[in-house]
């Protein structure tokens, strides 16, 4: 099994831990990843509000590059995953967009075949690797660690291709297979307010506060995420959101929890980058990790 890997900007910055743990997990499972050569920004959310068509062109360059590799394209960042899919759809559904984008690609000497299959790690792990293979790799079962699985918005909306749009369960199944207990977290597909925390703090904080309080209410010991921005918002702003009484709720990428279960060394799982350490929880659950 081999995939073309599209990290996207965040996984090189605030989301480093995601990339580290992701690579570790796929390595452990013997799935080869090859980073897309000279990839560029997917033209995500922010760019769209500047100029939609240009953002499609940007995404299209990546798709065209990926198509050449002849392998499926793995996009771990929810925003990238959506941006790439949206581009494929709009270039197809709106001839005038298709015209502009394809013209631009031809000008820079790229193929206009954008039909590469875009996958999310969750999709690959569940449907290609399979739960059995993952179970087999577990050395530290998560001993009923109570996890709130938080999918956020852009992974399931508008394109829910491998999971139920309204009640996604892919992450639940995956982590349950590693021995975690999935708490029923009704806010699992609600929005984390994205970049609003930076631009309109009170709005962002309000969302973050609700999401964290919600997770505690259903007794979660940690939150698992699939998106760099969700993870950043929920973890980094805990102190502000908690005003006075801090939440102290570890927020990890689902790949980090897998890494823990697989016994990946702490640093390779990017756990040292957390603001709120998972270790106390693991200790409390008697998970003999590190």
């Amino acid at each position, binding site marked *: 099994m081999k995939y073309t890997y599209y990290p996207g900007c965040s996984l090189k910055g605030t989301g480093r831990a995601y990339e580290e743990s992701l690579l570790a997990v796929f390595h452990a499972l013997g799935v080869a990843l090859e980073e897309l050569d000279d990839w560029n920004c997917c033209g995500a959310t922010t760019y769209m509000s500047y100029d939609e068509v240009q953002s499609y062109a940007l995404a299209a360059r990546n798709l065209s590059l990926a198509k050449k590799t002849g392998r499926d394209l793995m996009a771990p960042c929810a925003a990238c995953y959506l941006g790439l899919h949206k581009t494929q759809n709009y270039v197809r559904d709106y001839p005038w967009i298709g015209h502009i984008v394809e013209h631009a690609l031809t000008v820079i000497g790229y193929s206009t075949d954008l039909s590469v299959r875009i996958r999310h790690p969750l999709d690959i792990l569940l449907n290609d690797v399979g739960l059995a293979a993952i179970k087999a790799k577990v050395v530290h079962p998560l001993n009923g660690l109570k996890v709130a699985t938080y999918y956020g918005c852009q992974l399931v909306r508008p394109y829910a291709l491998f999971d139920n749009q309204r009640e996604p369960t892919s992450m639940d199944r995956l982590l349950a297979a590693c021995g975690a207990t999935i708490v029923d977290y009704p806010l699992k597909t609600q929005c984390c307010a994205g970049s609003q925390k930076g631009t309109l703090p009170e709005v962002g904080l309000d969302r973050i506060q609700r999401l964290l309080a*919600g997770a505690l209410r259903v007794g979660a010991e940690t939150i698992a995420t699939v998106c760099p921005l969700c993870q950043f918002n929920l973890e980094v702003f805990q102190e502000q959101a908690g005003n006075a009484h801090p939440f102290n709720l570890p927020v990890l990428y689902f790949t980090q929890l897998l890494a823990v279960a697989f016994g990946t060394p702490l640093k390779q799982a990017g756990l040292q980058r957390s603001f709120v350490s998972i270790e106390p929880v693991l200790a409390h659950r008697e998970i003999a990790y590190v």
Partner: protein
Amino acid sequence: MSDTRTPNSALKIGVYVCHCGSNIAGTVDVHAITEYAAGLPDVAVAREYKYMCSDPGQELIRQDINHHGLNRIVVASCSPLMHEPTFRGALLKAGINPYLLQMVNIREHVSWVHTNKQEATAKAKDLVRAAVRRVCLHKPLEKRRVAINPNVLVVGGGIAGIHAALTIANSGKHVYLVERQPTIGGHMAYFDKTFPTLDCAACILTPKMTAVGAHPNITLWTYAEVAAVEGYVGNYKVKVRHKPRYILEELCIGCQECVEACVYKEGRWADEFNMGLSKRKPIYLPFPQAVPQKVLIDPDACIEFKSHRCKKTCVEVCGERKAIDFNQKRWFDEIEVGSIIVCTGFKTFDARRNVYYGYGRHKNVYTALEVERLINASGPTGGNIVLRDGTQPRTAGIIHCVGSRDHNTNRWCSKVCCMYSLKLAHLIRERTGAEVYNFYIDMRTPGKGYEEFYDRLLDEGVHFVRGRVAEVTDWPAHPSEEGKLIIRAEDTLAGFVRRIPVDMVVLSVGLEPQADAREVRRLLNISCSEEGWFLERHPKLAPVSTFTDGVFIAGACQGPKDIPDCVAQAGAAAAEAMALADAKYVELEPYTAHVLEESCSGCKTCLTVCPYSAISFMQETKTARVNEVVCKGCGTCAATCPSASIQQNGFEDGEIFEEVEGLLAYA
């Protein structure tokens, strides 16, 4: 096919172009066409007129036929399926054979579908030219007369079927009423009250049900389905499949002692009639007023069927009557009827499809039908509106348009939900004194006394929030919401989002075509709209007829409808069926096929393609022969014959060749 077109002095063609007000004249240059037609060979008269189908229009044709001795007529107007009979009538009146007519469809196929006047006119010219050339070859034809069987089959025993059956039976004709469920009554039987009059549904329905059961002219077959239909208007052969109820209907007197005696002292299986809100035994009567008053056995529940080791206390108590028969198998009946009325009704939208309303997840979210049962005195709670935990709701929210007006589920408006929601709001408030909130997009209360009923609800202080609900959740955002179901919607009239905590949520589910509407449609050879509602022949002028003569539709199987509309349609359909029966015979189009024996090589190819085996091989002449009584006039044989020795009346090869070539010949 040797006939080709040469000017024929014997031919006098009259061409009539209709304006249809501005319907045609608006897009097609009628005058130009008339002039053009006048110039075509063999055309003696060409006229235009505002409304050809009107009496003066027809009179125009009649006079010309008499004065100018016209012997072929071309009318360029609307679809032949609309007015061909009208103009044939005109020809007949004028004393020439009605089949010497050819119609040109320049409305549905030209003026209504094109915008460029030039192009439209050009197309119309081609069509007229083709018709003129075709009509030259028309031959006089005679309709065939076939006797009509006066019996009528009514499919479906809801209020529509019941009303249709009674109406026809009262006229002295025999009716077979076939119902899939073990009892008749349909959805109306579930209701407690009916809007806007609030009269008790049972009180008005059950007398009609018993009347059906007792009527000498009605053969009532419940727990049965139509298995096959063949034949044609006036002469349908129908096969009916009876499902075994393991009770011999003719012996059972409905005393229900067997139900009492059943080894199960308590009901254990979801009671279909109460939407699973109560339990029933393996042997049961669907509901107290069921017609027929015959019990039935659920083989999936009954021990005898599972282990064959039941004490069979039911059989004991039934004793001498011996009405219980565990070995009953399904059986068939064959009947002959002249016409069929389809009243198969609707099904309600599956609320689970709207995940965000939490039906099936939150226990106090109900569908409207469940609440109908809760309110109903003969329902699971004897008419007390209580939540699953037995307490009375202090607040209730009614969500409109669940599975209606939504391109993610069903796009159409289900028409009855606004009114039944008002009814439920009234009843809930009356019985429990609860605060009731209605969440609606638009209030649709057209109908006699409906708007007044709405006013009454407003007086009663029911809340109306204009906004489609986004979510029903048990997730509080404020202490006051703890332990409640919270309904989140924008109050679009206030312009902000509201969260309203309630004890009970009622989903006003929309109406959908029956799951098997498409199979039924095939069975009866009628059409469905894209949504799956049965298609009427004409939305305004033939609302209960279908494109298959002798098959009529009534009630909600044709589209969402409330009780008054269903009954009205049922009456209309009954009248159509009776009119047909009283006509004694029906005239069939003469488009049958016939063999030209001189050129028939006797290859028998035609025998293989005829779907009605109407063609036989004559040993003595070594040629094929068509039995015109059996032939339905599809023309497949004519197309198949290698030596063109079979011709179809009205669609002879020559006629079609002329039409094709006429279309393509440039002016």
